[in-house]
């Protein structure tokens, strides 16, 4: 039930954001020089930022960019993690030890610190689309170790299952075993990891952006919108400045409740 409600709310948010971006007469980068830091008005329903850009359109675009980027990054991470976890589970013990050690090297640093370090060492003065791709790519490339560990544990349980042993005893070759017995179970291993990664990546992008290491301006993102809040002059204008934080929390809550429900059902 909660899963359906969460999915419905998410679909509504995406639809509303897409509609806002499509139908608004303002572009997310368009500056209204007559309405800098303007409060809520007929032209700008939630006011404007310090460059006179419409806040509603920017928040809607940030939601879409954040969700799209995090979803693609989570898909890449899940594929890397699944390849790594399955390889470790179905390889000789010495190779599995090496693979697990590699994932431990990544896990030996706090994730946010690692993200910050790697992202900051990539070009920061590139075009906005390039910075967006770089940010989400860093998330995808560094997010796999914890997922790989979880998939490895699941794959080890599958490997030791009675029906796998039966399959091997019946003379099935490794490829046949994988196709007939393992592949149908991969979905239950990979889906929870994918769903955990999406909100985690959105939150990580927000954290990176607040340090000036996220998506470049004028492309809107959760992180860059948090960074804008550094301007205390904005705060005196209206309470709408809190909109990005509020919407970010709502989106993360929806995604996390959906992910928890799927995990509980798996």
């Amino acid at each position, binding site marked *: 039930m909660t899963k359906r409600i969460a999915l419905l709310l998410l679909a509504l948010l995406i639809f509303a954001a897409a509609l806002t971006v499509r139908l608004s007469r303002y572009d997310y980068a368009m500056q209204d020089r007559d309405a800098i830091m303007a409060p809520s008005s007929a032209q700008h329903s939630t006011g404007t930022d310090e460059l006179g850009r419409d806040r509603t359109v920017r928040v809607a675009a940030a939601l879409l960019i954040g969700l799209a980027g995090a979803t693609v990054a989570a898909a890449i991470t899940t594929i890397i993690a699944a390849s790594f976890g399955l390889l470790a589970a179905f390889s000789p013990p010495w190779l599995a030890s090496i693979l697990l050690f590699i994932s431990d090297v990544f896990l*030996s640093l706090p994730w946010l610190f690692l993200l910050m370090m790697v992202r900051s060492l990539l070009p920061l003065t590139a075009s906005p689309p390039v910075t967006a791709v770089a940010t989400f790519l860093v998330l995808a490339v560094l997010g796999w170790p914890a997922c790989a560990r979880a998939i490895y544990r699941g794959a080890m349980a599958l490997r030791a299952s009675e029906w796998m042993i039966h399959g091997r005893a019946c003379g099935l070759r490794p490829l046949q075993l994988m196709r007939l017995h393992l592949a149908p179970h991969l979905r239950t291993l990979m889906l929870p990891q994918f769903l955990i990664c999406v909100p985690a990546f959105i939150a990580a992008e927000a954290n990176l952006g607040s340090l000036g290491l996220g998506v470049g301006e004028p492309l809107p993102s959760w992180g860059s919108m948090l960074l804008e809040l550094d301007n205390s002059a904005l705060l005196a204008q209206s309470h709408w400045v809190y909109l990005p934080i509020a919407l970010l929390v709502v989106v993360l809550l929806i995604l996390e409740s959906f992910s928890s429900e799927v995990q509980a059902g798996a």
Partner: protein
Amino acid sequence: MSFLLTISTRIARTMLLVLFAAAGTILLVRFAPGFFSDAREMDARYAEAARVEIQVTQQQTLLKIAVEEAREWLNGGFGESRQYSVPVSGLIAARAPVSASLLARGIVLGWLLAAFAALPISGLRKGGLFWGAPFTILLAIPAAAMATACILANVGGAVLVLSLLIAARDFKFLRSLLEEAWRSPHLLQARARGLSAPALVRTHILPNVVPQLFALATLSIVTALGALVPVEVIFTVPGVGQLAWSAVMNRDLPVLVAITFLMACVVGFAGMLSTRDFTQEAA
């Protein structure tokens, strides 16, 4: 003997992980754009010296850089900071107490919040979802968003943000741990015999969950270390997190390697602590 062997193996593995993390940092920073730039080039007085240093650095291989870093460490320091031109050990020594104090206060407050909320909520038959909702919401707030919101609302500070982040994660863990403990058969029997709730907690619940609190300690330390950078940067706390941020932005390799080394050491040894029973593992 096997106990000692297990501990030695774990320490060796942790040290190897730390070394790999430090080597990875050197590799990353060496190939980062801007590594061969020096702010002193802008000043005519120091430009020539800076250019010579850059040329020398450009001729260094990765192995040579790593060997020089290792030599600095063996000499009891972490080298000299590129951006501040002072010994890295001095920089870290001045900032480590600030971060350590922030971490300690944040973790203790976070634990207290989580424990005082999880203990009664885990025993509820109804309404657990409602009373646990604040922590669910806190769990969904990124560290930077929470810090920014605190600054905007002029409420709390770095310690509060860290403790709320830790409390949100620990609460989830503690609650499921305690709920499981409440459901155990011996506890049902004890309740049926009329033991009071405080007595149940003292004699049955706490002794059962204490060993698993070591894992929770590791989780708290890693969570706090991860949040340290955004929290210190946003609240302008002069700690190690802020130094790390400044080092990555300025490609300050010696400082970055030293901080990575420290972070990996803390996470590695905290991870070792979370393994509760070495003797059992050795057996």
